Every structure is written in C-alpha cells, then in structure tokens.
C-alpha cells in the first residue's frame, strides 16, 4: 500500500480526511515495526552464521588440548542448547520469535559441525559427499518445520553442494568439466520442486528460497556453458560415463515432471511462461547429451538461450513487481556482455582500441541498464 494512494482516496472523498490520517499513521507504524523486525532477524541471523563459522573453524583447527570425547560432548551440548532455546523462544514462550528462529538456524549449523567433527575423529576422507548429504537430510525436517528463509536457504545450498561433491567424486577427471550440466538440470529440478512447494499453504518462504537458489545455480551453470571450451570438454567426458549420463538425465526427467506438474495447477501467465521455459531447457539438455551435433552449434544455442533467459527475468520481474528478479536479469546480462566482449574482440583489435570500445560499451550499457531498472522500480512503487 502506498501513501499516495490513500491521499488520492481522500482527495476523491472515498475516505474522510480523518480516516485517511488514521490509515497513514497505521501504515507508518506498520512499516516501522516491519523494518525493525527485519533488522532484528538480519542481525541475529548474521550472529548465528558467525557462531556457526566459529564452531566449524574450531573443529578445522583440530585443537589437541581437548580430547575428541570432550570436543564431541561440547559440540553436541551446544547444538542441543541452541536448538532447544530456539524452539522455546519461538514456539513456547513466543516472546522472542526472531531470536528463536536465529537460534534454530544456529542449531542446524552446529548439527553440521557435529557431523564434520565426527568425520574428522574417524578420518573419513576429505570432501566426502555423504557427510554433506547427512547434514542435508538432518536439517530437512527442520526446514519444513520452522519455514524461515535462513534454514530454507541452508537446505538448498547443502543440496547443491552435495550434488557437486557427488558428481566430482564419481566421474573421470574429477568431473569438474561436467559440473555445469549437473547444475543446470539440478537447478531446474530444484526450481520445479520449489514451484510445487508453493501449492502447500505455509511453505511460501521455503518455496521462494529454493527457487531463488535454483535460479542462481542454473543461471551460473548456463553462463559457463556459453563458453565453447566447457561445452567441448564436458560433453566428451559425459559420453565416456554411462552411469553419470543416466544420473543427469534422471534429474532432467524429474525437473520436467516437477515443473510440468506445477504449471498444470497454477494458472497465471508468467508462471506458465517460466514453466514452459524450464521444461524447454531440461528437454534441450537431454537432447544435447544424447545427440552429437557439432559442439559449435550447441554453443550458439546456449548463448541465444542465455540471452533470452536474461530478458525473461526482466519480463517476469516486471509482471510480478519483484525487483530482485529484475536485478538478477541486470546482473547476468552485464556478465554475459562482458564475457562475450572479451571472447569476440580480444584477438581482433589493438589493445588500446579494445579498452576504449569496451569502456564506452560498459558505461553506455550501465546507463541504459540503470535507467531501465529505475523505471521498473518506480513503476512498482506506483
């Protein structure tokens, strides 16, 4: 609700001046309260993150002054204390719900630290993917029970991290070249699952957090696939591993099913456009992995696809009144333009000319993008 709208109603005598003043005062109070609440959440969440990092660094230092048993007892005690106090503050006493939420989040971090300490004590291999999987599985019920952004984001990040570690542990050449493919289809699957979560009342925050993480992962991976060398190397490695190919294709099928189901239930036009795009990309990834066309053809398609997606971000952000989506589009379009500029023009121009033209393009591009962003932002406010 905007102040200008209330004043307009007062001018048109739809509401009395007294009612308008009361509405404006209430609105100001609501905004102040909301800002203050968000600030408390942000500060306490940052505090929880710092404490979690401190616990993980303490474990990493492998300090020998304390025995493993004492360290284990300390960490389990700290996890239980954070988890229980968070629960009581948020759900039983209800007097400090935001701090309670941050403590529950800290509990989720400390649970992971406990898993890592156990792995250190028994010298379980470094970068072992199952440890991250155990952490993810452990906090998954908490994600759906507390339904806050920090725990939902932690869950999505752990899932993404596990997929990366799993992929690199199984493939030839440590699978680094293949990671973008894993992450494009995994991002799409997570996006689809996020869409399905929207259908369940009360899970909107989890759904939004998972979709945002999914978009970032998928866009970053697609950005990498606009580079020719990655397309060539990754695809060759994939063809040598039937098992890995089967895993990625299965995730692509899951993505198509999840996004398709979501689009069938939800009716609005933007969601459908998003869904068709997601299904299209997942199907294209399957085509890419199964049918050998010259790599350059795929590189061109990936570039066109990435450009179209950044434009879709503008459209979706504008339609939904969501500035974060628009900002994402601005970021990826800028990154894409910079990358292609270096790719295409480096060998063709004298370096001085290269930097001159590059500078002009970026400055002019920046002005256009900023103007466009402001225009969209002000149209949201109206």
């Amino acid at each position: 609700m905007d102040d200008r709208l209330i004043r307009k109603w007062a001018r048109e005598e739809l509401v009395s001046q007294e009612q308008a003043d009361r509405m404006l005062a209430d609105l100001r109070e609501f905004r102040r309260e909301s800002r203050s609440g968000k600030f408390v959440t942000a500060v306490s969440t940052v505090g929880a993150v710092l404490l979690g990092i401190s616990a993980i660094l303490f474990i990493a230092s492998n300090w020998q002054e304390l025995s493993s048993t004492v360290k284990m007892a300390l960490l389990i005690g700290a996890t239980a204390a954070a988890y229980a106090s968070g629960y009581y503050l948020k759900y039983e006493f209800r007097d400090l719900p935001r701090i309670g939420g941050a403590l529950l989040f800290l509990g989720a971090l400390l649970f992971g630290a406990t898993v890592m300490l156990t792995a250190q004590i028994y010298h379980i291999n470094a970068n072992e993917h199952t440890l991250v999987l155990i952490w993810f599985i452990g906090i998954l019920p908490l994600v759906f029970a507390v339904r806050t952004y920090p725990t939902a984001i932690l869950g999505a990040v752990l899932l993404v991290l596990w997929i990366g570690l799993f992929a690199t542990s199984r493939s030839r050449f440590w699978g680094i070249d293949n990671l973008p493919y894993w992450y494009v289809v995994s991002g799409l699957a997570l996006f689809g699952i996020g869409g399905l979560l929207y259908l369940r009342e009360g899970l909107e925050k989890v759904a939004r957090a998972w979709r945002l993480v999914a978009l970032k992962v998928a866009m970053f991976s697609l950005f990498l696939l606009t580079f020719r060398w990655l397309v060539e190397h990754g695809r060759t490695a994939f063809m040598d591993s039937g098992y890995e190919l089967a895993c990625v294709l299965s995730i692509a099928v899951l993505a198509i099913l999840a996004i398709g189901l979501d689009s069938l239930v939800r009716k609005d036009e933007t969601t459908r456009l998003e869904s068709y795009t997601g299904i299209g990309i997942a199907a294209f990834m399957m085509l890419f992995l199964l049918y050998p066309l010259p790599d350059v053809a795929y590189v061109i398609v990936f570039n066109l696809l990435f450009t179209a997606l950044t434009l879709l971000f503008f459209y979706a952000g504008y339609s939904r009144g969501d500035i974060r989506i628009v900002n994402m589009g601005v970021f990826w379009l800028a990154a894409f333009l910079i990358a292609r500029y270096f790719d295409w023009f480096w060998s063709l121009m004298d370096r001085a000319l290269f930097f001159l033209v590059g500078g002009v393009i970026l400055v002019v591009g920046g002005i256009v993008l900023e103007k466009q962003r402001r225009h969209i932002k002000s149209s949201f406010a109206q």
Partner: protein
Amino acid sequence: MTRKAFILIGVFWLALVGALVGFKEYTLKTGQDVLLRTVPVDPRDLFRGDYVILRYEISSLDLEQLESDFGSDQIMEIWGYRHVYVTLEVEDNLARATGVFVEKPEGLFIKGSAFPEFNPDRDGPTVLTIQYGIESFFVPEGAGKAIEQERQEGMDVRVSIDRFGNAVIRSLVLDGREIAVEDL
C-alpha cells in the same frame, strides 16, 4: 513447529550422528588390525588444508599381476560406482594385496571404489586406482610438516578392517612405533 516435531527432529539428529559414530566404532571394535604401507607422493599434493593425503601400495593395482574375477576388458564397467574387494595377505602385520574381485571374497579383504588408470603404452587400462575411504589423515593446524618429514623415511598406517571390508584409520606407524597425533 509443534513440540512433537521438535522432539522428533532432535532425536533424528542424535540418531544420524550416533549412526555415523556407531558405523565407525563397529569397524574399530570388531575389525582386524593390519598395517598398510604408504608410498611417497608429490609433496605439492601432500596437503590440502589440514589433512594429509595418504596413498598406499594397494591404492594402485595391476590386474595382470593379481588374481581377479573379471578381465581387463571389463575394467571400464566398474568405474567408480561399483565396489571392488581387494583380498589381503598379512605378513608381520603388514598387509599386501593378493587379488581384486567384484564379488565378495572369503578371508580378509578391504572394500573400495575403483577407477581405471589410462596408460598410453597399452591398448586399454589394466591398472586400477582404488580408493578405500582412508586416504585422508586429519592433523592439528600446522602439524602437516612433521608428518611430511616422517613420511620421507617410510611410514605405515594401522587400519582396522571389519568383516564387510570397511576400513577405519587407527594410527600412523613409523619403524614399529605408533605416532599419536599429539606427538606431532
């Protein structure tokens, strides 16, 4: 979140950590202790953060020199995602590989994931790199250099192997002397 969910999640966390501990403790309590000889590796690859990468004599096995239930033509099929079982013969506590199998063998064996090694001089790979899950030894911050010096003189690792072939590191051994982490 309801009180029931709160309790169930707490118990679930304890169960996960307990299972992880229990799984490893089972191997340590019931397993047979053997020594595995480590081999020198490029010092640049020795450290990653605060752990030491361990590579054993049994980490690289040539199928042509060992007993096996599969041929070198099938080597690509076991790539990383099927367990292999390496049978061990113990002499003076030191274990050496005698065979590599995809079916669980009799006697003392250790379980691992196998990756073929490509050799340009041969038509196809006959050598397997095998990871047993005991390739990292975590050390206190800054203690890695001491291990590096010890390792130059040759070092063994005492591991416990249970009846399913799972292995857990117990300690490092130098000239028959156990090295506790605190000594480093």
